[in-house]
């Protein structure tokens, strides 16, 4: 989204389709946000403007980006609210964010993000602050909107269950580094990075209740004190001398995708 604070150094390339968005002028890039890429965040209350109605905040996107007249934009806001499953949308459109419940605010945020029918929706912990039954509603909503608009979703979450439900591919990160990437089914069934495996085994699962969990020792490092070599090495059961010396390069996984580990857990290690 280009929202990093001033002073941050971004290296590398971000391609959206064929366009290098790092190379774009700020104006052009701003036009992109909302139009082709949009973001929904974890804390819906602070993402919404408390002083204007929810409907206006949806309409605003259309008025600014598309130059749609206010009345028409408000009518479209009602449609968008109804699309995201908010009951009585024609009344709700005139309400303020504080009059919405947590789940409805998240829906309103999704309505704003979808106003311009973007190609990519970045969902940053969209369900973390929500109750279990509401979380299930939002995940189902995201899946159905993805079908309907043919858009892609970048789901950022710590919830492996939500990943299993929604995602096709998964990237596992630790302390700013990519640990493993690949097709969800194969990464979950045969994790090759010790961190991925440990993460999956440390999660309490409803289908295996009562089993003692495989906890990962230690705590995640703060961004300023990441260990030398592989960042996961101080907590890793498989770590050797080489892990303390150099960051492992990404190598190909046996079932496609990549893994960054000197001792990647190959098929044979599972025997």
């Amino acid at each position, binding site marked *: 989204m280009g929202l990093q604070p001033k002073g941050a150094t971004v290296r590398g390339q971000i391609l959206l389709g064929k366009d290098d968005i790092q190379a774009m002028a700020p104006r052009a890039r701003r036009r992109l946000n909302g139009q082709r890429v949009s973001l929904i965040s974890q804390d819906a209350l602070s993402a919404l403007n408390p002083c204007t109605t929810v409907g206006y905040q949806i309409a605003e996107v259309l008025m600014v980006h598309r130059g749609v007249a206010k009345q028409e934009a408000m009518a479209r806001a009602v449609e968008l609210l109804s699309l995201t499953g908010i009951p009585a949308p024609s009344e709700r459109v005139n309400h303020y964010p504080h009059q919405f419940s947590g789940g409805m605010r998240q829906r309103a945020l999704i309505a704003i993000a979808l106003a311009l029918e973007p190609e990519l929706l970045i969902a940053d912990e969209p369900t973390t602050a929500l109750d279990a039954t509401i979380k299930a509603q939002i995940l189902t909503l995201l899946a159905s909107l993805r079908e309907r608009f043919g858009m892609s979703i970048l789901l950022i979450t710590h919830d492996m269950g939500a990943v*299993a439900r929604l995602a096709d591919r998964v990237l596992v990160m630790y302390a700013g580094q990519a640990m493993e990437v690949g097709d969800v089914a194969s990464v979950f069934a045969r994790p090759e990075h010790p961190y991925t495996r440990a993460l999956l085994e440390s999660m309490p699962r409803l289908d295996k209740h009562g089993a003692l969990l495989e906890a990962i020792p230690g705590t995640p490092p703060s961004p300023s004190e990441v260990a030398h070599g592989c960042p996961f090495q101080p907590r890793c059961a498989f770590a050797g001398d080489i892990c303390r010396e150099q960051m492992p390069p990404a190598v190909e996984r046996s079932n496609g995708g990549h893994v960054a580990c000197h001792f990647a857990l190959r098929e044979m290690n599972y025997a």
Partner: protein
Amino acid sequence: MLSLVHSNDSIKPRSEIPLLETSDLTKTYSIGGGMFYEPLQLQAVSGVSIRVEKGRTLGIVGESGCGKSTLSRMLAGLTPPTSGSILLDGCDVTGLPNAERKRVLRDVQMVFQSPYSSLNPRMRVAEIVREPLDVHMRSLSKKERDERALSILNRVGISREMARRYPHQLSGGQQQRVGIARALVSEVRLVICDEPVSALDVSVQAQVINLLRELQRSLGVAYIFVSHDLAVVANISDDIAVMYLGKVVEYGRAEDVLQRPRHPYTQALVDSANIPDPVLEKSRKPRILTGEIPRPTDPPSGCRFRTRCWMAQDRCAVEVPALVRRGNSPQAVACHFA
């Protein structure tokens, strides 16, 4: 209500007198009100009857506003109930004079959700853990109290060196370990854990859950484990009570409640827990509840869940379903159609 839990033999093992038993526990708050309008009555907990056996774990699960935190605060003696009774070893603590109640409730301690804000920032870890002994066990010498504090800290994985630090110098997981040590340092028999792992990083959650289980095995302490996360509750609990808007809707042995949930709300809750198995997750069709949790100040008439229930009939709006065992169900369910 009172007779109901006594007749409910789904909770085992049965000893003559359970460690803790509540009957028809209710908490009503008055909010707002003024010269021109009546205050709103908010029934946060409504007629809850549960029992906890020695050395076992009762999990209480529910979403926001279901009253699980109010319930745990009442059980720890931090909030007086509006009506109903809390029996500790068969003795009603709600009627006791303050000094007496304080002595009895020494056996019940609490672990809080936010590890940092529940620890005094101006005390060192060792002092925080020693404090309950300073209050309750004055007969011990200071040296003995210090030794006990350090020994329980050692058991929860906090070294002597770390015990000299202040809470802000510890990580979230370590802070929660200190909270657990403080709860266990006196001769405690029941620890009420109110969302003890929800503020922790996923990779640290498992450490704390395993620690609690291990301490239960070695110390024989009982837990009431309160959480919104069904998978976490499932992992640690022997029995589970599912709450919705202040009422228990399903109550029984963990495996019965999880494997064959009878109440539609429990069914939806079980369905809404995502399992980290992509093949399974993408093939199953979870039951998704419509609508949201109604305001607790204005709960629906009859069954409180009926506004979101796919089975609701006219009867549900009129008649409050009692929490009883129905048909061949091993657990108690508060639904006309379970």
